[in-house]
């Protein structure tokens, strides 16, 4: 289908929804960056700026009872999957109202009730778990799909290999979304793999490997939808590579000096939000005012979530001893 037709098919509401979600992520990330710089937030963070189209495109193609699994860089996934600013923000502040009651922090965001597993901060660590979640769906004969988000770097982990192969032979309803943002921490993928497309690795498992433009939410959405619906229909797993880039450092402390200026700039021209905004305006799907209103609403929601988080109760020190076992107290 041509881009134009697709836009028509998706319709205004959906597209504005994409925009809103992407801006939510971007605004959230910008805001907490300052909170961190000001020393108001504990811990460390890995941000999603520049990659918004990935999470939004994929999660928009999911049904309510599907499940995603995320990484050390989960803010975007959490927001796209529908976790509230409040529960995320409170978790970053380590409060009892956080989605993990303050036990998880930035790297372990999640809320299974909303279709997101507690994020796994071990690179490659969520892929085998996603195989298991989708295996459960298959065994329980539920038409649900499990999606793993992971990075280019993760695709060099043994867990990637074992997971894709196992999903292939068990024919589980899994989608493996590789967000290829060209770097794993400070390391360019060119240094750590001799192939151009990670999607090609799908061949090793006899499954389909697909590439989409991770800077274009519509392209991501379409390809994700195909993969997800294929999985749902019993067609087995897909490896979906999204070509993308992060416009921020790897983590809070990282100025990203290892990225050549030209590379950064060329990707910045593909800013998934700017370009999508232009498209909305050009196609007459929204006016500047309308979009500004969205932005303003989000900023307000953010303000409120910060207040919510800051005013939420700190856990008691002894809460450390809760939540480990379902069936017993922590033994002395």
């Amino acid at each position: 289908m041509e881009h134009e037709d697709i836009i028509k098919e998706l319709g205004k509401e959906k597209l504005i929804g994409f925009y809103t979600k992407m801006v939510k992520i971007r605004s959230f990330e910008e805001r907490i960056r300052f909170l961190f710089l000001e020393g108001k937030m504990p811990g460390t963070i890995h941000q999603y700026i520049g990659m918004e189209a990935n999470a939004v495109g994929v999660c928009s193609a999911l049904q309510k009872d599907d499940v995603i699994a995320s990484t050390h860089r989960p803010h975007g996934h959490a927001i796209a999957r529908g976790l509230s600013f409040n529960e995320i923000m409170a978790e970053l502040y380590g409060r009892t109202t956080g989605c993990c009651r303050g036990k998880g922090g930035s790297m372990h965001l999640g809320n299974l009730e909303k279709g997101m597993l507690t994020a796994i901060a071990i690179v490659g660590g969520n892929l085998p778990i996603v195989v298991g979640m989708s295996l459960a769906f298959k065994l329980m004969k539920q038409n649900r799909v499990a999606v793993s988000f992971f990075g280019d770097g993760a695709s060099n982990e043994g867990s990637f290999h074992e997971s894709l192969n196992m999903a292939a032979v068990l024919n589980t309803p899994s989608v493996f979304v590789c967000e290829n943002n060209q770097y794993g921490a400070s390391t360019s993928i060119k240094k750590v793999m001799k192939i151009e497309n990670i999607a090609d690795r799908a061949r090793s498992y006899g499954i389909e490997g697909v590439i989409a433009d991770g800077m274009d939410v519509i392209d991501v959405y379409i390809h994700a939808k195909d993969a997800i619906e294929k999985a749902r229909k019993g067609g087995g797993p897909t490896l979906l590579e999204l070509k993308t880039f992060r416009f921020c450092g790897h983590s809070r402390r990282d100025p990203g000096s290892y990225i050549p200026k030209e590379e950064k700039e060329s990707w910045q021209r593909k800013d998934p939000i700017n370009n999508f905004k232009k498209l909305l305006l050009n196609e007459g799907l929204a006016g500047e005012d309308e979009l500004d209103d969205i932005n303003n609403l989000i900023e307000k929601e953010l303000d409120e979530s910060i207040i919510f988080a800051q005013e939420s109760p700190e856990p008691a020190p002894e809460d450390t001893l809760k939540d480990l076992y379902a069936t017993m107290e922590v033994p002395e």
Partner: protein
Amino acid sequence: MILSIAEALRKAIYDEMERDDKVFHIGEDIGIEGGFGGAFTVTLGLEKSFRDRIIDTPISEIGIFGAACGAAVMGMRPIVDVQYGDFLFCAMDQVANQIAKLRYMSGGKIKVPVVMRAPVGVTGRGSQHAQNMEPYFLSCPGIKIIAPSTAYDAYGLLKAAVRDDDPVLIFEHKLLYGAKGARKEEGAIDASSEIPDEDYTIPIGKAIVRKEGKDATIISHLLMVHHSLQAAKTLEKEGISCEVIDLRSLWPLDIGLISESVKKTGRLFIVEESPKQGGIGAEVSAQIAETIPDHLISPIVRIAAPNTPAPFSPVMEKFYIPQPERISKEVRKIIEEY
């Protein structure tokens, strides 16, 4: 009916799978027609009754444990078979970083009811198919650890594990399975029991006194229970009365029962098949030393393998594994001295 441990485990798996269709078993070579039923025959034939829920996998330990973890989170009741406990290292991240921590990291909002079956024991195969892996997991909060030394316990503990909402690691001993025919292990010990025809479980976290005594307490698990009982028998003839406790659960530890016994006997011996360094004995010893040191008439003694990997040659292997003679000698020595 009288069953070996392998048979009792098989029956437990069968019964649990029949009771609850959320239970499934996953591993390498566990349900292949004409195959082994796992490395130690435990799952032999189960695929005939539950083809969809006996899942054979590639040789991919990360994948297997991860699959179990994910399925458990979504409400299934997976049982994992790892062929040899030594291969737990291949899946260590999934076990220790994911399965053990997921619930905690989620703030208690999810649960991970995985059962992990790991055969252990030093059995003529060299260092990489020999390890008693228990100590590695004793250092890992979030996992319950059980270790049956009789078929009766194997049945009841495995069932309890499947029904438990937390991750449970069950260590099974290669020399206690009682596998028959071609797959019989050299040096195997009969651990079969009468298994009553009823739905019983054995509570996780409860040790049991295998033999009462008043002069010394010997704590052990798995094969070492049998060696300890043999030592106790020898000592009994010499007038030394030993209480032998089978831990059955390594975490949580039934420190209550151990303490009761030590208060009575005043002497504690901990026997284990793994190297002494950082072993189970260290933890038991430390707990007793910090809670009831005044009840000890003599120093606590840890009887363990030496601080080396397992050697291959039968001569060295025999030296490596704590033998009944060594146990009785150590007890005798202490009793004579104190």
